[in-house]
């Protein structure tokens, strides 16, 4: 087995792809974002409920896709649940940097999300890793209701 493959598919990532956490419906969500990666057919639907202090009180997701997209949705929703909006934005920003940048920095605030560092060796899989991240970013930007994002930037 190549070390790149083992870096990409860490045991924790495979575990979250097989048994995603926070997977399911959130009937009383304030915001819903449908994330679509048309080049792969991956779909992630994120639902967010905000708490009394405007924190991300609960997040759930549904959808289907590759191990990287599912595991990143699972681990990201776990990481930002209960966090304030600014904290969440910092985490998402750091996560984006982790999977796209060539720097070796992996901020400790990312915790288990640091396992996704292996993705940067697979440029064609970066979109998979960022699908849930982009959907949560969008959720923070909209006042309420539903919207859609796509990794392909449709006109």
């Amino acid at each position, binding site marked *: *087995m*190549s070390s*790149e*493959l083992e870096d*990409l*598919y860490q045991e924790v990532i*495979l575990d979250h792809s097989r048994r995603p956490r926070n997977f399911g419906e959130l009937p009383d969500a304030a915001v819903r974002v449908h994330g679509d990666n*048309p*080049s*792969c*057919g*991956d*779909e992630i639907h994120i639902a967010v409920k905000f708490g009394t202090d405007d924190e991300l009180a609960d997040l759930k997701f549904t959808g*289907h*896709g*590759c*191990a*990287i997209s599912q595991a990143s949705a699972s681990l990201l929703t776990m990481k930002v649940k209960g966090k304030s909006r600014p904290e969440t934005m910092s985490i998402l920003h750091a996560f984006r940097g982790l999977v796209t940048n060539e720097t070796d920095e992996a901020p400790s605030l990312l915790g288990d999300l640091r396992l996704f560092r292996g993705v940067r060796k*697979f440029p*064609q*899989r970066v979109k*998979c890793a960022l699908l849930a991240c982009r959907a949560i970013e969008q959720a923070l930007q909209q006042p309420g209701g539903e919207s859609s994002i796509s990794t392909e930037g449709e006109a």
Partner: protein
Amino acid sequence: MVHKAGVPDWNRIRSDFPILDQTVHGHPLVYFDNAATTQKPRAVIEALRHYYDNDNANVHRGLHELSARATDAYEKSRQRVAEYIGAASADEIVFTRGTTESINLVARAWGGKFLRAGDFILLTEMEHHSNLVPWQLIAERVGARLRFIPVNDDGTLALEELSSLLTPEVKLFACTHVSNSLGTINPVAELCARARAVGAVTLIDCAQSAGHMPVSVQEVGCDFAAFSGHKMGAPTGIGALYGRAEILNATPPWHGGGEMIVNVSLEKSTFKKAPHRFEAGTPNIAGAIGLAAAIDYIEAIGRAAIFEHDANLTTYALERLVEMPGIRLLGPSGKRGAIVSFVMDSAHPHDLTTFADQHGLALRGGHHCNQPLMRRFGVPGTTRASFYFYNTTAEIDRMVEILHDANRFFG
């Protein structure tokens, strides 16, 4: 010589493809993405080099020796393409960038003139986006509508629906010869005969058949046919549109510019006859020469022999794959093109192709420019292995071994 005692020497043929002799991620390359693009034999690479080393000039205009040589080679290539696909004349061959541009030419130029509001365009549910989107665009512009022959669960066309779909309002019928994701070989001669009977103009997408089996446009009886050079050993950026002389000459130009005109004044222009009317600007001269070289190479092996070799590989691959646990094979069980598409319970197509790539195996994972067809089969995408005459059963064994490893890794 590619033949040994009347039988193609496949090992010798494989050694004509320099690119195949390499390791990828530390493993011998197994190239199974031939439906996307094929590798190029040394003879084609040499033909390009020879042209640029000796004969390069612009065509049809220079009154000098090199231009005469380039023009001669370019037009001889057109003649070679005409013979190869069984056209009546070289004037029925338009050089294009490939299948996609060929179909866009027909949709825009022929469709723009002859399609009217209320007309129907009949396609199938298995068309590549390149034989779907150009028709959506022209339909929207002229107010025509689209209609589709459904696909059965086994990946064949639901031909029993044809009578109700092929009404006199159908003005254009376009269909793929071989499905790029299922491998289905469609009965295109029968389909064209049925479409002609209601007065429809016919187009066949030969992208997956032209380099893999004997194809004669006159036997198929189509009005238009499109194919790409790069899927049959030629360079990228060259392909052809066949158009029956009568219909091609009735089709107006689509791109304006040099080479396609007779007289130009500041207000208006008159145009050459087909095919030059459709080749504005400096064409892909080297590409056309490379395409003719690829045709020579394929014909030296023989398309019937290539088809048989590909079919044996495909049958062997299906026999080996069906034994795998948790696999779903798509496409017909009978005769098919050199394409095998499947879904595995243990891994998404993108994880599988990443895993395979790290073992030196080039597969394609995704929707294969067939999004509606993927929805039809209820899958987000598939993993596809597609073969050409330089592939071997040993490589299929290697693929099966890698897929077993992937099952263990992801399962």
